[in-house]
């Protein structure tokens, strides 16, 4: 393993920890007394610091150490969690991130900013009085000296490393040295009874365990922190010895001393203790049920701890996403081959072969679903990022905004989630900047001064619907249309439905903002949204009520690699239409065409639906059949028909890129390989409609001129 791989593992982990940190901090802001959350923040900081120092990110480690120090005080309740603390820690989190970015070749992090954050944090420490304290010269490894409050305690620390601890490069002696450093008095007794006879001794194994009697002012947490990286590699048992209840128990103390001196083993002690328990019962000091209860309690705690350790080690596996991509490609090929097998089997009239083909089909389907599910991630992490965005933006714009989320556990393909970030940022910014009013305006309109942004995700068939709702001032369709005409995006006599008017906000260079702020108003954002969603083969819908609010719904496919398609035929050419967009198929006869005076529209249950003839659009030679089929689809919230010769049926479509050479063939989103090994093109319906619209517009303009 090369050094570079190691560093990337660290940065990857650190980025993850940072986003976790951010989420915890934002939660902490809501419930500042939650010790669990404070613990989480602390652990994240500690891990970044520790592994940062290990991988040579000294700057990161030193800086993080300062932040950690303050949070340790919060953990020990020396200081309380205030908004200033959270603000500063969030700033610190950003600073760590930019330090990491800088290490990865990005812009260098601002050192003055780091200094400012540290000074701000130090000012929070009790007794600091605003004056920065001496940091002690980069003693990143030493836990903070301010952590304790009262007099020293005596702890018994039992450390029993796993035998293979050396394999991880851990030197237990260093850990013991660290322990010695934090205490005033420290006695270390090594336990050798694990040592095998010399001929069986493996020098690469650790057979020794230790007992440490440590007198220190530090808390138990500080001791645990020494072992934070070897948590799962050794048994650690820490006990405070000078508490009343411990001192008071003579029997146990005797046993302890014996164990400590190595006179008897723990098992022997336990055995010896059992009859004591029985004898206690006999003498009537305690009842047998009490002893049983105590034992049960001990077992329960033990079991819970074991379970927790097990769960922690088995929850997740980190795999580079390229490996997953490779797996998905292979599954895609398998699906294609399986389709061929099915086709061959059905023409062969061989019963046995058909049985095998069916079995392979079932397995392939399961394999495909499983593989796809591996790539699925909960959208929650993305949602958490927006909490921060909303918090920062609302402060900047002087608005009070609460953000609520729903369906954070909804799963989406990793690629989709990655590419969803930017469009969502733009939409949310837009909602906050243009949608939600300032508190005084809201009060004047009889609304709650605090605005609401609601982010939700739900599954709907093979798609996921992501909604951004706000209770702001809403969109005015008439104003939008006027603006579009003013800017020349629309002819002066354009008549738009409300829905169509709302879609105008996604036009390039279209902005309703009176002035340009650094948040939005340049008319770039929503255009980007539309393009990104197109690239994801998704669609956008806008609903809005003037004065009440706006809802933007993104409809996205669950996955990008395999879609359900509808296979259609025009002359000898086969095409695939995304089934998710298809609503119905109706027939188109020659009389229908005559009735519509050769105009490309058809009456479907009293609704006028325009259609595009694929044969004409793609210049496919040959005569159209007497009765053609129109596949009616929902394209950008408009019903549009696509005329084909015949509809063949549903097809599991593995999407293959057409490559750079066909980059300009935007009407196709890719190609797929059919059962017989030939290639069929996948139509990008929304692009096709837009091209045809634009071309017809050019035509009508040239006729008018």
């Amino acid at each position, binding site marked *: 393993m090369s050094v570079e791989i190691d560093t990337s593992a660290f940065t990857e982990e650190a980025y993850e920890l940072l986003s976790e940190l951010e989420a915890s901090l934002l939660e902490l802001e809501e419930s500042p007394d939650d010790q669990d959350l404070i613990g989480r923040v602390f652990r994240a900081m500690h891990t970044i610091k520790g592994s940062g120092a290990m991988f040579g990110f000294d700057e990161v480690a030193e800086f993080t150490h300062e932040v950690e120090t303050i949070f340790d005080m919060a953990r020990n309740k020396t200081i309380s969690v205030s908004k200033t603390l959270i603000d500063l820690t969030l700033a610190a989190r950003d600073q760590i991130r930019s330090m990491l970015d800088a290490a990865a070749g990005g812009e260098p992090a601002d050192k003055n900013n780091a200094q400012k954050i540290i000074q701000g944090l130090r000012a929070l420490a009790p007794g600091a009085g605003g004056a920065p304290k001496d940091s002690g010269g980069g003693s990143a490894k030493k836990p903070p000296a301010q952590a304790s409050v009262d007099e020293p305690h005596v702890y018994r620390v039992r450390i029993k490393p796993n035998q293979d601890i050396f394999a991880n490069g851990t030197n237990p002696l260093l850990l013991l040295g660290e322990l010695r450093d934090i205490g005033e008095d420290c006695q270390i007794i090594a336990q050798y009874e694990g040592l095998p006879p010399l001929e069986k001794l493996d020098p690469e194994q650790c057979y020794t365990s230790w007992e440490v009697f440590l007198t220190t002012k530090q808390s138990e947490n500080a001791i645990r922190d020494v072992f934070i990286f070897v948590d799962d590699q050794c048994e650690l048992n820490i006990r405070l010895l000078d508490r009343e209840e411990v001192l008071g128990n003579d029997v146990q103390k005797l046993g302890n001393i014996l164990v400590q001196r190595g006179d008897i083993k723990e098992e022997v002690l336990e055995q010896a203790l059992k009859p004591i328990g029985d004898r206690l019962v006999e003498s009537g000091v305690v009842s047998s049920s009490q002893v049983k209860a105590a034992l049960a309690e001990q077992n329960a705690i033990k079991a819970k701890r074991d379970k927790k350790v097990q769960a922690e080690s088995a929850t997740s596996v980190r795999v580079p996403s390229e490996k997953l991509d490779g797996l998905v490609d292979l599954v*895609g*090929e398998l699906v*294609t081959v399986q389709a061929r097998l099915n086709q061959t089997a059905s023409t062969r009239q061989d019963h046995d072969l058909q049985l095998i083909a069916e079995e392979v089909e079932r397995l392939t389907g399961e394999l495909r679903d499983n593989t796809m599910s591996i790539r699925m991630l909960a959208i929650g992490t993305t949602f958490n990022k927006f909490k921060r965005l909303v918090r920062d933006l609302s402060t900047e714009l002087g608005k009070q905004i609460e953000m609520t989320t729903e369906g954070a556990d909804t799963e989406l393909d990793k690629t989709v989630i990655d590419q969803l970030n930017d469009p969502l940022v733009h939409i949310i910014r837009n909602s906050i900047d243009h949608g939600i009013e300032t508190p005084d305006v809201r009060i004047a309109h009889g609304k709650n001064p605090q605005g609401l942004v609601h982010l939700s995700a739900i599954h709907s068939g093979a798609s996921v619907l992501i909604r951004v709702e706000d209770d702001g001032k809403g969109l005015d369709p008439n104003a939008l249309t006027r603006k579009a005409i003013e800017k020349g995006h629309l002819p002066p006599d354009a008549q738009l439905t409300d829905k169509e008017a709302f879609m105008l906000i996604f036009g390039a260079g279209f902005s309703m903002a009176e002035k340009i702020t650094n948040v939005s108003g340049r008319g770039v954002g929503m255009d980007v949204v539309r393009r990104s969603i197109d690239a994801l083969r998704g669609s956008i819908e806008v609903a809005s009520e003037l004065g009440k609010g706006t809802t933007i719904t993104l409809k996205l496919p669950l996955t990008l690699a395999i879609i359900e398609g509808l296979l259609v035929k025009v002359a000898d*050419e*086969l095409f695939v239409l995304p089934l998710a967009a298809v609503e119905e198929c109706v027939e188109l006869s020659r009389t229908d065409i005559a009735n519509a005076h050769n105009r490309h529209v058809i009456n479907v249950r009293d609704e006028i639906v325009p259609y595009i003839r694929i044969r004409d*659009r*793609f*210049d*496919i030679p040959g005569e159209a059949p007497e009765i053609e089929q129109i596949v009616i689809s929902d394209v950008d919230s408009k019903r549009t028909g696509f005329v084909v010769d015949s509809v063949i049926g549903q097809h599991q479509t593995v999407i*293959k*890129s*057409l*490559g*750079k*050479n*066909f*980059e*300009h*063939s*935007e*009407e*196709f989103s890719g*190609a797929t*390989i059919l059962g017989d*090994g*030939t*290639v*069929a*093109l996948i139509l990008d319906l929304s692009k096709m409609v*837009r*091209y045809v619209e*634009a*071309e017809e517009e*050019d035509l009508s303009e040239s006729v008018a001129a």
Partner: protein
Amino acid sequence: MSVEGINEPTQFLTFHLGNEVFAVEIARVREVLEYTKVTKVPRTPDFMLGVINLRGSVVPLVDMRAKFSMPQTKATVNTCFIIMEVLNEEGGQTVVGAMADSVREVFELQPDNVEKPPKIGTKLRADYLRGMGKHEGKFIMILDTDKIFSAHELRSIQQGQGADAD
């Protein structure tokens, strides 16, 4: 009189278009396939024959006759697809197929036997050629595949056609 990039004995694959013989460097040729059904991609230049399935990946095919503005012929039993690896503008590798009337042989040329292409008289754009090879008393045109099959070259005509709606 050698040509840049051909400094040592190099093997070439020759193919026919009508009576003319062309050569491509064998190191770039991945395989030669028999003629199969091609899926035409609508609204692309004429010389873009379409795409085929090459063991699960979609590979674009170029009609060499159309690319060199030669008259069209019917596919015969000898018609074949030469699948090649070409370097694209970004330095990456893409796979492209070329349809030829037939493939002939693989032979080795000494650098001395390769000359710079003449600026006129080849009926081809000079930048399509890497050089002229002398083999058994005949001249063979050695093609610059990276140039001919660059994505930019293959898209060039399209911009006037499909992208006017932008």
